[in-house]
């Protein structure tokens, strides 16, 4: 009864505010007094002051075509194969993959999500100069790098159906996107770095925010009723290797800021994202394949373990 009275009171309070010109009915929402998360004191430091989730307006980000609109043609078949490889790499490109990941573990929502390296923002930018290879790289070459580093596997050759299909899928996703123009949502989020990151905070934050899905040991969680991972491993033998972009603290932090915890992007502060990723960076993972076999066999295990 008390609750009811409170809600009625709240309704009156809102009705008197300037809601008259909106057509939407005013719905009863949670009273702020119950909202533990809304009561986090903000503005204590600069870090806390930026814990504000930006509202997304319609038309702010590029919208790729719908899956139902894949054309019925040879090209469309290639796009479909590419999509299959993209969301189930473990099955459709099995022999090129050396770990437990799929493309869509990082390129979220089938390569469509802004600030999770969406394909529609990446494809029109190639060929592009990359600092990593110190050369101008084609899109196909970039996909090969993904297989070598992020998938910790073997790069398919440029004429392989896998590369063709993935390229066709990215090409189809960027239908209508401008060539060689940076679209909003490209790559990852841009972060400030107020201080040097520390894994001490990172470990604590990891256990709070990440361990629910990725596990306390960071090894992800496997399905009980099928092969593969429900939640991808962040380190360990089944994760990306040291050469992958995601193994750099910067890329990881930029990705986490916009996308993690899943569905709650932009709720971590910049510094929290840096701290968590520093902790993840310290963990053991496969070595960089560019270092050669001698180093990879005889070098001591990495970081924190």
């Amino acid at each position, binding site marked *: 009864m008390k609750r009811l009275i409170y809600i009625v009171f709240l309704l009156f309070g809102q009705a008197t505010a300037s809601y008259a010109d909106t057509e939407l009915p005013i719905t009863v929402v949670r009273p702020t007094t119950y909202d533990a998360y809304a009561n986090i004191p903000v503005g204590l430091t600069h870090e806390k002051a930026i814990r504000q989730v930006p509202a*997304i307006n319609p038309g702010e*980000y590029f919208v790729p075509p719908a899956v*139902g609109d894949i054309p019925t043609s040879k090209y469309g078949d290639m796009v479909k194969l590419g999509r299959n490889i993209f969301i189930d790499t473990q099955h459709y490109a099995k022999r090129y993959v050396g770990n437990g990941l799929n493309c869509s573990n990082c390129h979220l929502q089938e390569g469509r999500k802004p600030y999770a390296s969406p394909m529609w923002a990446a494809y029109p930018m190639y060929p592009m100069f990359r600092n990593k290879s110190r050369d101008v790289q084609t899109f196909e070459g970039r996909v090969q790098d993904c297989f070598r580093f992020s998938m910790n596997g073997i790069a398919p050759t440029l004429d392989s159906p896998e590369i063709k299909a993935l390229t066709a899928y990215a090409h189809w996703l960027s239908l209508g996107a401008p060539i060689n123009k940076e679209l909003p949502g490209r790559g990852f989020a841009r972060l400030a770095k107020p201080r040097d990151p520390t894994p001490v*905070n990172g470990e604590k934050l990891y256990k709070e925010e990440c361990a629910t899905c990725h596990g306390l040991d960071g090894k992800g*969680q496997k399905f009980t009723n099928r092969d593969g991972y429900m939640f991808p491993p962040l380190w360990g033998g089944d994760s990306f290797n040291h050469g992958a972009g995601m193994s750099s603290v910067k890329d990881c932090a930029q990705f986490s800021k916009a996308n993690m915890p899943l569905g709650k992007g932009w709720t971590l502060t910049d510094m929290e994202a840096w701290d968590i990723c520093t902790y993840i960076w310290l963990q053991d993972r496969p070595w960089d394949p560019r270092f050669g076999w001698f180093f990879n066999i005889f070098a001591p295990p990495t970081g924190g373990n």
Partner: protein
Amino acid sequence: MKIQKHETEKQLIKMLGLVILGVSVLTLTGCGKKSDESHDAAIAAGKMLAEKGRGSIPACVACHGANGEGLDAAGYPRLAGLNTAYIDKQLQDLARELPPPGVLIEKVSKDYSKTPRIYSDLTVFSPSVRHDAVMSPIAKQLSTTDIHNLAAYYGSLSFQAKPVAADYEVLERGQDLALRGKPEYGLPACVSCHAPDGEGFGAGFPPLAGQPAAYIVSQINKWQTGDRDNDNLSLMRAVADQLTDADKLNVAAYYANRSLTVKGK
């Protein structure tokens, strides 16, 4: 003389090792049997309570169906084959009193840059709340043991979903939301937590397939109004806040349309 002593020592060590091995094997097998027995007893007690009720506690089967399959028309959820820990937690949350209005639940700020070690032990979590006009009064009458037994019983049941037909366009839109979400608005896909076929994953991510459409819609409505707020990291709350009324109907119809088989234990 010395050699003999060594041999006796060796024999003694061997004997000791055998004894330790035997004892450990015995205790291990014994423990296994005992826990199995107690689990079976819990299932039996849960079944009794579910079918007959007790005192003012009505029988669960009256609303949730004879085999825990739920009731589509009324939107009563299925319980058969759900994760045991999930049922356990939901009943506990349903039984929890709502915080009185006006009480400010303050989270201790975690200002890591200043004194991380002190604050880490003082973190305050808001109590998980799930309120339902029908179920909450019933859940309040259940003891912890009752809840444990009921969870064990319904977790052990097998389940076969009966797909509900729906309009093609509705299903298509529901599928689009379930598999891809709304990337341009930062809304994740249902399958990214509730597993690829909506069969659920672990204690934190309940199944969507095989649940009545009306139940899914009513739960999302509760997330939005705050009558349900008992998830980890408030992941579902963040998702539910972004769903439109059409989204709810589409995705609920899609999951009510899915087939699903859950093996009993």
